[in-house]
């Protein structure tokens, strides 16, 4: 009996498709656990910033609260407004979450694991971000609600505006590393904290010092743009609750509503992980060969991304919301020109060195 089971499992593992599916499920498990952790962190950090304690009742210091929330949302009645466009209304959560989950395919969690090792990795990540925009627009349009429609359009305008700085930052990294595969970009920076691109990359000292200011600026711009990409304060105009109720998902309820949140938190990890793999050395250890290896790789990758997520939470509960005109001003008149300057400067430095 046991032998048959063993043989069955071995036969399954010999099938390429089964292995691929198993490997693709791992990030899904990670997303769910990570979302619960970040939900808890966000509420606690927010509360302590505002001198409150947040939830304390469910479990030790309210640690079971995210699970309780999840069960509550699962049991809520699902309401589709009578006048809504029923098909688009139902499809929108699928598109939004599938778009944000597809981005996990190109994230190198460790030196031996990457969902799909394609050459266009970082480029694909931007493309899948655009699919999320389509989902949000669908949700906004189908809800039959003025605020939802405005929220969806604002979200689309904002996400496309901030896609330009993100893509230009990627071009700068591609110039330095000569690759768009996040795994190869990470390998390029391997070998200690001094090799990370935020500190100028693995070049001789002189080149490094010349590149350092520009890579630093690029990183900061990418970080700002990534906050805008996930629609969080100070860029949370699409769901500005004082103006648009709950933005593009006002009419949603129950688990469909939760799916937009899940997608938002998944996106939050994706953009943080993108910054980490481009500029902060991805899975590579900050101490060179000490504490490095595939298992430590996962630890470093996730904890670096988590630090960036914490930073975004900190920003969210510190700054007030921008106005629409300020939002467009930041993207088109500040970030984009600075990135063009960085692009030309990095190009000139790389040419003059070689």
């Amino acid at each position, binding site marked *: 009996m046991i032998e048959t089971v063993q043989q069955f499992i071995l036969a399954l593992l010999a099938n390429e498709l089964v292995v691929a599916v198993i490997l693709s499920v791992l990030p899904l498990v990670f997303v769910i656990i990570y979302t619960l952790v970040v939900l808890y962190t966000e509420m606690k950090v927010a509360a302590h910033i505002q001198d409150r304690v947040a939830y304390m009742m469910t479990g030790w210091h309210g640690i079971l609260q995210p699970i309780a929330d999840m069960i509550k949302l699962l049991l809520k009645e699902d309401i589709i407004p009578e006048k809504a466009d029923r098909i688009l209304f139902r499809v929108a959560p699928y598109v939004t979450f599938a778009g944000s989950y597809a981005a996990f395919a190109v994230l190198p969690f460790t030196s031996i694991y990457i969902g799909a090792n394609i050459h266009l990795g970082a480029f694909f990540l931007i493309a899948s971000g655009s699919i999320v925009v389509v989902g949000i627009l669908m949700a906004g349009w189908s809800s039959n609600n003025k605020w939802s*429609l405005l929220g969806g359009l604002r979200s689309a305008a904002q996400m496309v505006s901030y896609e330009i700085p993100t893509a230009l930052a990627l071009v700068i990294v591609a110039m330095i590393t000569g690759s768009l595969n996040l795994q190869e970009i990470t390998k390029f920076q391997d070998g200690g904290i001094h090799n990370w691109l935020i500190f100028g990359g693995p070049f001789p000292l002189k080149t490094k010092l010349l590149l350092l200011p520009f890579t630093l600026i690029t990183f900061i711009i990418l970080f700002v743009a990534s906050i805008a990409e996930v629609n969080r304060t100070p860029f949370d105009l699409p769901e500005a609750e004082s103006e648009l109720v709950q933005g593009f998902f006002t009419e949603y309820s129950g688990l469909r509503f939760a799916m937009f949140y899940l997608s938002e938190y998944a996106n939050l990890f994706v953009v943080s992980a993108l910054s980490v793999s481009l500029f902060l050395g991805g899975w590579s250890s900050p101490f060179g060969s000490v504490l490095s290896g595939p298992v430590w790789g996962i630890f470093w990758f996730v904890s670096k991304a988590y630090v960036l997520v914490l930073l975004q939470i900190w920003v969210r509960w510190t700054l007030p919301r921008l106005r629409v005109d300020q939002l467009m001003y930041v993207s088109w008149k500040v970030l984009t020109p600075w990135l063009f300057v960085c692009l030309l400067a990095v190009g000139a430095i790389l040419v003059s060195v070689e």
Partner: protein
Amino acid sequence: MLTEFGKIFIFFLLGIGLVAAGLVTAWLLRPARPYPEKRATYECGEEPIGSPWVRLNVRFYIIALIFLIFDVEVVFLFPWALVYRNLGLFGLFEMVVFLGILFVGYAYVWAKGDLSWDKPTPQIPTLHSRVHFSEGDLQTPSEQRR
């Protein structure tokens, strides 16, 4: 057999699958007792007035157009960036020319004020007529009656 893009397709399917699995679970567990008030559009708690598909600010389209131009330009930048370190000085000058042309357009859009989201200044129409109006002529009937 299974290409790398096939694996990405699996990721897409799994993303859809998770939502589907969650919604089916919720469908088995949740109550469903709709009545007209519940199924009405919520909007902001009041009864909605007028069609929700309102006329939109034209600036959304302008932003979309500018985005399209920049995005296409960035797509052209990617292949250049990947081989940049082999091209040397030639690559730099090629791209300075390319970016220069783009920059003219960018400066034009900036100067025309299409990058800013300021409110348009309202123009109050004034009446130019040779006919002389007395004060009372321009009042509405209800005001005259008062």
